[in-house]
């Protein structure tokens, strides 16, 4: 008897409470948020980057530099605060659609920053390209099609296309007198496109690629392939690996005695951010990239000092890309005084963005929303990327298949 009564009371109390809560929620959502409250609501930046696995250091570098840039502007975008929603992409292409949908539909982010992995970039671009918002900024993934066949008004890139750092590398190999080469990389978007660009440039300049080796991603067991390279005896080897895989490849290449006999070339990622871990195995290797540690500009010096102070790590090209993403966001928000619902104006501002404080030197957006920038020639000297010169000036990606150009 008593039990039944308390049950009724509890149920009634529960129902009353729920009704009150629902009522409040409905009333609250009916309040106009755009005017008084909207201007102060933080801008939501969704981040889909790897924080685990072989590319974890890239994800961390980009995120830290992005936050640093916005902190330098007092943590405000166009007068509004910033809220970050970060998801670990785990470099998983199968998980990418779910992760992207979550950021867009559930978290309703205003900007979507990411990814590192070219395969994931294609997935994200297909989802974002078919919508008006959010605006996607790619801070690393070089997949050619992101600013090629999949290009869209609301997709921008602050990093590079896989073609850009690799093509001058192939030209360099030919210029240094090598006639035959072997290419080796991971068998996924970035590896295939970079090796393709390098081979293209090498063969257009009189060289011949005798073997193209592609290893399942992200395996790091190279012994069998190093023996294969030694058997082929090419004049040079053109390789692309990044992050942890690059460290291992450089060490294995040196340990197999190939480093002194067959010179190694590649896009800068081969030696970027891994010189400390790889040590002597990376010394002397020439690469081409849109950044070099020793670029002698105030912008670069200031950036490197600020980044090292904030994170305790040395800045690398991934941090630079994150930093420029921050600059792009600041300009986008400033142009519309924080009212980013005016998407068309935001996009116009982003297309016209300039980067005078970019550590890589000033650059601008191409019509396909990819950077037009200088590609530098670097060499690892005493654990640092020493700038030897400019390999290609204001290099623009061909953007094959893009409807915006």
């Amino acid at each position, binding site marked *: 008897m008593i039990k039944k009564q308390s049950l009724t009371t509890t149920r009634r109390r529960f129902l009353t409470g729920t009704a009150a809560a629902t009522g409040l929620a409905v009333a609250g959502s009916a309040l106009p948020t755009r005017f008084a409250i909207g201007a102060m609501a933080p801008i939501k930046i969704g981040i889909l980057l790897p924080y685990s696995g072989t590319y974890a250091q890239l994800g961390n570098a980009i995120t830290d530099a992005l936050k640093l840039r916005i902190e330098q502007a007092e943590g405000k975008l166009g007068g509004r605060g910033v809220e970050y929603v970060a998801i670990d992409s785990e470099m998983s292409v199968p998980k990418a659609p779910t992760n992207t949908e979550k950021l867009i539909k559930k978290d309703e982010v205003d900007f979507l920053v990411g990814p590192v992995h070219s395969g994931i970039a294609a997935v994200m671009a297909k989802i974002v390209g078919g919508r008006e918002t959010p605006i996607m900024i790619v801070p690393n993934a070089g997949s050619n099609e992101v600013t090629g066949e999949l290009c869209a008004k609301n997709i921008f890139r602050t990093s590079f296309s896989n073609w850009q750092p690799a093509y001058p590398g192939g030209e360099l190999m030919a210029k240094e007198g090598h006639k035959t080469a072997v290419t080796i990389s991971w068998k996924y978007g970035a590896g295939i496109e970079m090796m393709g660009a390098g081979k293209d440039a090498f063969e257009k300049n009189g060289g011949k690629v005798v073997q193209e*080796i592609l290893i*399942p991603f992200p395996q790091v067991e190279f012994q*069998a392939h190093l023996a294969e390279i*030694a*058997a082929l005896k090419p004049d040079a080897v053109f390789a692309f690996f990044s992050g942890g895989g690059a*460290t291992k490849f450089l060490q294995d290449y040196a340990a197999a005695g190939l480093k002194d006999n067959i010179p190694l070339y590649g896009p800068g990622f081969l030696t970027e951010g891994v010189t400390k871990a790889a040590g002597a195995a990376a010394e002397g290797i020439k690469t081409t990239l849109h950044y070099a540690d020793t670029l002698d500009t105030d912008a670069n010096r200031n950036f490197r000092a600020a980044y090292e102070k904030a994170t305790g790590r040395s800045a690398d090209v991934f941090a630079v890309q994150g930093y420029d993403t921050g600059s792009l966001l600041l300009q986008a928000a400033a142009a519309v005084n924080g009212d980013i619902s005016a998407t068309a104006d935001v996009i116009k501002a982003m297309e016209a963005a300039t980067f005078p404080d970019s550590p890589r030197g000033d650059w601008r957006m191409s019509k396909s929303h990819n950077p037009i920038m200088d590609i530098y020639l670097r060499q690892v000297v005493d654990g640092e990327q020493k700038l030897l010169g400019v390999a290609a000036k204001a290099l623009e990606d061909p953007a094959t298949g893009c409807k915006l150009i």
Partner: protein
Amino acid sequence: MDIAIFLIQVLNGVQYGFMLFLVASGLTLIFGVMGIINIAHGAFYMIGAYLAFWLTGVVGNFFLAIVLGIPLMVAIGYAIERLAITHLYHRDHLYQVLLTYGLILIFNETQKLLWGTGFHSVRVPAILAGSVPLTETLVYPHYRLFISVVCLAVAAGMYAVISRTKLGMMIRAGASNREMAQALGIDIGKVFAIVFSLGAALAGFSGMIGAPVSSVYPGMGDEILIVSFVVVVIGGIGSIKGAFVGAMLIGLADTFGRVLLPELAAMVVYSLMVMVLLWRPQGLFGRPA
């Protein structure tokens, strides 16, 4: 492919096979003797590698780090067995998979908390840092030869223990028929604890000596786990001999597959497994069902 390169690839394949054998032998013992599917076995490999990285930093000497690391791995294996695995002996395989999968997640996150998500290198000790020239362009590091020699010694040691000692007899009895062994007075609980600790230590040891060669990074255990299961399935569950032959087969198949059939390289290992299973479903040295 000329004879020199062929022999070099055989050397590569055999060395990879040895490393696989260490991990797979522990797995097959645990599966064969205890009937436990230990999915966390790859995690033991990873723990061993991280221990080698950490202890080398602490004591400064790689060999000393290994000497200290092995008892640590045994202790970790024993602790896991007492705390978690003990509850699974009478349960379905599904519970074992669930529990050991949970262990992987715990280990992976703990590793990230302790050592971060970066890639770490362990320096090859100076005495073994040299290399032996094989062709005019290719040299083979002494350290990789050292790994093969050590693995061979461990394999011989295991064979001696399993076939010649009383403990080995008890393990083999437990593998054949658990209840009968218990009825004959063998303390099967103690045997199981020893087998599990031994298996964990073997996997950890493989991670330790492999660390200078493979580098130390998050998720390294997951890759070797899958291949180890293939080795165990091919070799026959519960058979150390089978694990050895299976590991050598997989090591050679993987190495030659990458070089001769690069398009299908990822498939070669699994195709081999399918072919062996079609011919002998219980594995090469397993007991017929």
